[in-house]
């Protein structure tokens, strides 16, 4: 039995292409969790959105520890306050950090999760006091191999933190001409905020699941040249990720753009 689960195969066969549906083949379960199943280092100057318009190229900062025992605390005011903290220079700025850049930040230190434990926290239990600790976190330039950006596996593969965290992400959307009347459409696990060219565009509060096009910005114009997108995702216990794309008036993906990390 275990061999079935151990098999490290994502079979994207041709079986069961049924009429009237999307044509995606069935996805066999894959128990592997190594990073390159989800994210691979950037190796090209630019990347295109995927077939559905999802933005896959991002600068990702290793998670900032922010202990939370439940996601129900992520009301609007809470996440605005959490994301207003200046963790690093150039936060929300026009210049992106470089792959490998490091920041130092003081966080509430959480010991590594005991994976052999069951559900470790009951509702209503008082949160423990956390030790303040200065940590060094690193920026990484990654291309996602999936429509979503699996922050959780980014964290579990590269750091000790996985729950009770804040992730920062940024990318550049390059346009050959102005593209008016588009919207940034986002889904995230859990709450998140998103900015386009320095302006707040989307807020997703509450105990969120990642749903494509869960919320969208008001109409905006992607200007000719560089457009800088920032996002921040916060999670307590849960499997952090996000998906972002631009959609037009008809809800169709905007694909005449490229992505870069400079």
């Amino acid at each position, binding site marked *: *039995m275990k061999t079935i689960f151990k098999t490290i195969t994502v079979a994207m066969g041709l079986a069961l292409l049924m009429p009237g549906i999307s044509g995606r083949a069935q996805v066999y379960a894959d128990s592997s969790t190594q990073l390159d199943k989800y994210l691979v280092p950037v190796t090209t100057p630019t990347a295109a959105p995927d077939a559905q318009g999802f933005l896959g190229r991002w600068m990702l900062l290793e998670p900032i520890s922010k202990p939370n025992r439940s996601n129900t605390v992520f009301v609007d005011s809470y996440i605005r306050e959490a994301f207003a903290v200046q963790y690093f220079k150039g936060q929300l700025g026009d210049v992106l950090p470089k792959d490998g850049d490091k920041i130092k930040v003081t966080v509430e230190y959480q010991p590594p999760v005991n994976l052999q434990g069951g559900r470790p926290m009951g*509702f209503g239990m008082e949160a423990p006091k956390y030790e303040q600790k200065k940590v060094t976190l690193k920026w990484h330039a990654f291309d996602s191999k999936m429509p979503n950006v699996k922050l959780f596996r980014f964290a579990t593969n590269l750091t000790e933190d996985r729950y009770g965290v804040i992730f920062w992400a940024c990318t550049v959307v390059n346009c050959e001409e102005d593209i008016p009347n588009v919207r940034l459409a986002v889904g995230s696990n859990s709450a998140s905020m998103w900015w386009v060219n320095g302006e707040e565009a989307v807020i997703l509060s509450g105990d969120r699941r990642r749903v494509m096009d869960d919320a969208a910005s008001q109409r905006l114009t992607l200007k000719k040249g560089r457009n800088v997108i920032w996002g921040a995702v916060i999670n307590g216990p849960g499997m952090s990720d996000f998906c972002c794309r631009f959609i037009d008036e008809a809800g169709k993906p905007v694909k005449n753009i490229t992505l870069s990390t400079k």
Partner: protein
Amino acid sequence: MKTKNILLAGAFALFGLTAAAQVGAPYIHDPSTIMECDGKYYTFGTGGGGLISADGWVWESGAVRPGGGAAPDAIKIGDRYLVGYSATGGGLGGGHAGRILTMWNKTLDPNSPDFAYSDPIEVAHSEVDEDCDAIDIGFLMDPNGRLFCTFGTYFGNIRMVELDPATGARKEGAKDIDVAIDCEASSMMYQDGWYYLLGTHGTCCDGANSTYNIIVGRSRSPFGPFLDNLGRDMLQGGGKMVVAAEDRRFGAGHFGRFVVEPGVEKMSFHWEADLDLSGRSTLAIRPIIWKNGWPEAGEILDNGTYKILSRRRGYALELTVDFVRAAGGMRGFGRQANEPVVKVENQKLEEVIGGWPEGNIDVRANDYMARPHQKWTIEAVPEAGGYLGGPYYKIVIEGTNRALAAAGGQELVTVPEFSGADEQLWKIEQLTDGTWRIAPKAIPGCHHPEKFCLYSVADSTPTLAKFDFNNDNAKWDIKLVK
């Protein structure tokens, strides 16, 4: 029994309840799909045990399921019941090693000499840190006799795998398939060539702050992809709402389907919190309505005053009494436009009731004219028990105790005073097309009243006849009088 009835009646009175909640002691979390066994209904919950009901409306603890763990499901295959559960309890903030087990029983009645579970066998599991947490099993037997189960939680993917319906074990060579993400309490059902995958989104286990809600996608294949009404793949978070919170009940989760008969379907789930029942997690049962190929929760009829309109013609059920002309009669055409506007009152009961016979009065159907003899107050009768997912109701003319009753010979009548007799009690269920079936609890002289319902034998003539979902004569619209 009498004490229980008094308590039920008291609960309705104390809280001004509608009929929207199961009664008795319906406390459960993660209820399995309701099973019927030897005339009783059963559902199992997280932690072991479960509920039993003799009528589907009044529930008490007493079902027996060994193994503990979380979120069971059940399905009847042949003359046996296959019960599945998770040996583990999920680990949203910790590890995610899970095991899905199945076991058989010939009966669900713990007092039966045949009651004995087989040894549980593992059909699926998850490793400690893979993108799945193997709990929350849901079964489906499709029309081809293939047995599937889904499982998983918010931690990664919902998966499905084919089982062997003869053994309840994993089918030889079957592989797990990812079908959705970020759900809990998944379940599948089949309808008209579509496979439906249901999952629960939102926050679990937080009482009245639980945002749990049940969503659905569908596919022509049991293996997906399951797309929502916008074409979004459930692996990308897609899902169309099936049932969410009500005004006094929050956190709908853990779907199960029960087909009573063609056109009459129920969904079971739990409320994370029912504010009328101490905010506890309770069993919920609602009709399933199918709209354009999508399931959604129907209603348990609230107490209120309604017009009852036949689907056959659209005529309203009324007393067979004189039509009395109302104020606001013909005033001629071409009147001056500048005369003051006045509000003309509807005809009132006291204007006409004196002309009605004092004894029994027949009923018929006629043009709805908002007259007192066409307005029916429908109220649950808590002490009368109920049926799967609903209480019995009395149907009386508004402002009176004149009650609709089944009469001998499978006909209808109204009696001047509601007495609580079985022939004056009505089962009122929303059908899968959103219309209603109105059926008597008893018919004088009829030994098998359960098949009979309010029926239009002619446009103006209601009677009692056998229910047929494919016949508009057997269906009614029930609309609030405003």
